[in-house]
């Protein structure tokens, strides 16, 4: 099990290799190195996981210390990896899905000089993500956090020659930076109060030293929440994710669907003790999650770009995860993370194959009737979309979403309102995803298929289809098999949620409601979009509002960006520096003035002497 370090090491080494030598290697070699490294990483992860499952280490947690990163006075940080069920789950998901996406992108990315650069960045991203997941203290986690932020910036702005992409990358980085700053302040707070940043020690110390609801616990939890909100694109920092679709589709699949945006969820799950100690913050988490999932689901209904629909969908689904976290249903959130990784990656990759086939056409209203021409993409969308919407019994998404919905009613923090929000969200989800499917794959055909996807792309899609279907069976609710294997597995780290409100709404009832909601959404979508008449998106005021993502961009631009830009223009003259410049200006003026006296004429100097001596005598005379 001490081979754990290989998991981040493989992609890191390959990233370095590709960064230095990439342009000189052949395309095939670059593809093999790029995806092979993730493959090896997955094998290492699988091996370690197998050992972990068969011979669990004491306390169900394994620590692999690597070296001492820094030690100064009483501040000591070790570079160490920590493996417990939660990080094991994430490790497997990240490497597995990452591997499939890398294989996919060997075919997707165009054959140019940037090919190696792409794989270098992607590998660096996976390495950073693994560091984030496996970090045993918050500083190593923060290192991974920053690393994925960096790679996100690099990959969104991958085609940097187009300034719009660069702007999107800047926006992503800046918005997540706000969250990162909150996170860093939280780290400072935790360290000054508790004296350590090691996660397990922090949890124990916090429980013993801090009372429930104490202000320091609230502050720390709120700051960490700020960081999570930024990275996971929740309210109010969700504006960067739709614009991040400017990056290549495999990037969107990996970073903005399956892994990076779930880093916030992971953070909260890891530090759940802090959140338990601050119930107000936990409530805030749930509220944020519920609000976000509704707002972004509504926005997704009005989008025209296929990737933007999926982006808003991601925000919405992570809202579900936040909702689960806020309710205290930690394992439910992790379960939903796993299934979401599968079907969202599937959806993005399928979207990618559509876009690739249509020569980078992304507007849904210019597509149509692709059902026959792109069968693999069609079925991928159907399976993935159904998983997303929660097709009962068959798809993994059903099980995970059902668990969350049930907990939203039954858990100790549960509330009828949350339940309603969740159901409404499910309805909207079904609506928008089937709208997408009907618009793209049914109806009259507007676009011309230029190239069919090849073997690499289809392989990844097929594997993800399978997992989207069967992934849910690891944790089945009591009525449908009663094998909560995943929750049991995660219990050692994430405490189980006791059902409190057993009332009129039982678990079965919730499941049936969810299924009904799904069906309703499907029917509505069919009615509205199966036969498109005008073929144009609705352009009413409401639609515009939803299209712009509830006007957040406009708001932030007015409130923050413009005043800041104006201020920086004002300060361009650097007022403080002007003082120093004034000083030099005065001295230079004096110099220029005094230069006049150096005429070079002897008589002038002699007269200077004479005048000086006259004055001198006067002084002597006066001094007597």
């Amino acid at each position, binding site marked *: 099990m001490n081979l754990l370090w290989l998991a981040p090491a493989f992609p890191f080494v390959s990233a370095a290799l590709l960064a230095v030598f990439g342009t000189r290697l052949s395309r095939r070699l670059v593809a093999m190195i790029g995806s092979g490294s993730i493959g090896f990483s997955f094998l290492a992860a699988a091996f370690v996981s197998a050992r972990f499952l068969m011979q669990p280490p004491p306390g169900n947690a394994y620590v692999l210390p690597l070296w001492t990163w820094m030690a100064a006075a009483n501040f000591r940080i070790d570079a160490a990896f920590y493996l417990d069920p939660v990080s094991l789950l994430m490790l497997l998901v990240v490497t597995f899905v990452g591997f499939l996406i890398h294989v996919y992108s060997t075919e997707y990315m165009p054959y140019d000089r940037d090919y190696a650069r792409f794989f270098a960045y992607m590998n660096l991203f996976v390495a950073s993500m693994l560091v984030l997941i496996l970090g045993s203290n918050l500083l190593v986690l923060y290192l991974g956090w920053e690393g994925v932020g960096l790679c996100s910036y690099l990959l969104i702005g991958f085609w940097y020659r187009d300034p719009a992409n660069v702007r999107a990358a800047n926006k992503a980085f800046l918005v997540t930076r706000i969250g990162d700053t909150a996170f860093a302040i939280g780290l400072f707070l935790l360290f000054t109060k508790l004296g350590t940043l090691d996660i397990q020690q922090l949890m124990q110390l916090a429980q013993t030293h801090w009372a429930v609801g104490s202000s320091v616990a609230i502050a720390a939890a709120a700051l960490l929440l700020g960081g999570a909100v930024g990275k996971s694109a929740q309210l109010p920092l969700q504006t960067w994710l739709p614009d991040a679709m400017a990056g290549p589709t495999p990037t969107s699949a990996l970073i903005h669907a399956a892994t990076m945006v779930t880093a916030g969820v992971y953070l909260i799950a890891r530090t759940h003790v802090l959140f338990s100690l601050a119930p107000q913050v936990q409530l805030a988490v749930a509220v944020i999650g519920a609000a976000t999932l509704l707002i972004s689901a509504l926005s997704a209904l009005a989008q025209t770009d296929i990737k933007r629909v999926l982006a808003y969908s991601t925000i919405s689904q992570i809202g579900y995860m936040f909702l689960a976290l806020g309710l205290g249903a930690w394992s439910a959130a992790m379960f939903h993370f796993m299934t979401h990784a599968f079907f969202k990656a599937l959806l993005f990759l399928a979207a990618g194959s559509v876009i690739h086939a249509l020569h980078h056409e992304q507007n849904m209203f210019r597509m149509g009737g692709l059902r026959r021409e792109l069968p693999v993409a069609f079925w991928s969308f159907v399976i993935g979309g159904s998983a997303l919407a929660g097709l009962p019994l068959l798809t993994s998404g059903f099980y995970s979403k059902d668990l969350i919905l049930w907990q939203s009613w039954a858990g100790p923090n549960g509330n009828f309102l949350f339940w309603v929000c969740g159901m409404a969200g499910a309805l909207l989800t079904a609506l928008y995803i089937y709208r997408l499917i009907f618009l793209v794959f049914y109806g009259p055909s507007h676009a011309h298929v230029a190239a069919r996807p090849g073997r690499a792309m289809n392989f990844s899609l097929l594997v993800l289809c399978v997992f989207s279907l069967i992934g849910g069976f690891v944790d089945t609710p009591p009525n449908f098999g009663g094998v909560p294997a995943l929750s049991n597995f995660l219990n050692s780290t994430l405490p189980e949620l006791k059902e409190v409100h057993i009332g009129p709404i039982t678990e079965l009832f919730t499941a049936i409601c969810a299924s009904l909601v799904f069906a309703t959404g499907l029917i509505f979508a069919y009615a509205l979009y199966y036969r498109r008449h005008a073929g144009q998106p609705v352009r009413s005021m409401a639609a515009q509002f939803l299209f712009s993502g509830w006007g957040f961009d406009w708001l932030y631009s007015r409130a923050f960006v413009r005043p800041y830009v104006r201020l920086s223009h004002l300060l361009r003259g650097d007022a403080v520096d002007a003082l120093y410049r004034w000083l030099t200006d005065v001295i230079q003026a004096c110099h220029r003035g005094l*230069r006049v006296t*150096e*005429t*070079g*004429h*002897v*008589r002038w100097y*002699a*007269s200077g002497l*004479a005048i000086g001596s006259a004055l001198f005598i006067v002084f002597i005379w006066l001094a007597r």
Partner: protein
Amino acid sequence: MLATVLFLLGLAGLLTRRNLIFTLMCVEIMLNASGLAFVAAGARWGQVDGQIMFLFILTMAAAEVSVGLALVLQFHLKHPTLDADAASEMKG
């Protein structure tokens, strides 16, 4: 008193005249005047030191005149004129 008057006359001349020869002449006047002051002082107190001083001043004046005139010759070689203001390359 006389020495002062002579000295100041020499100074005024120095400041006014542009021809280098005249400048040197005025310097001589000034030197002479200061020597006169020394001798007068020596005579006032009846000591010999005033005359000694004058002797040294005289020696110095002789050396200075010879070097100065050599410089004037060089100056004349370099510039066509004897204008003191022409040698203003060290200005600024």
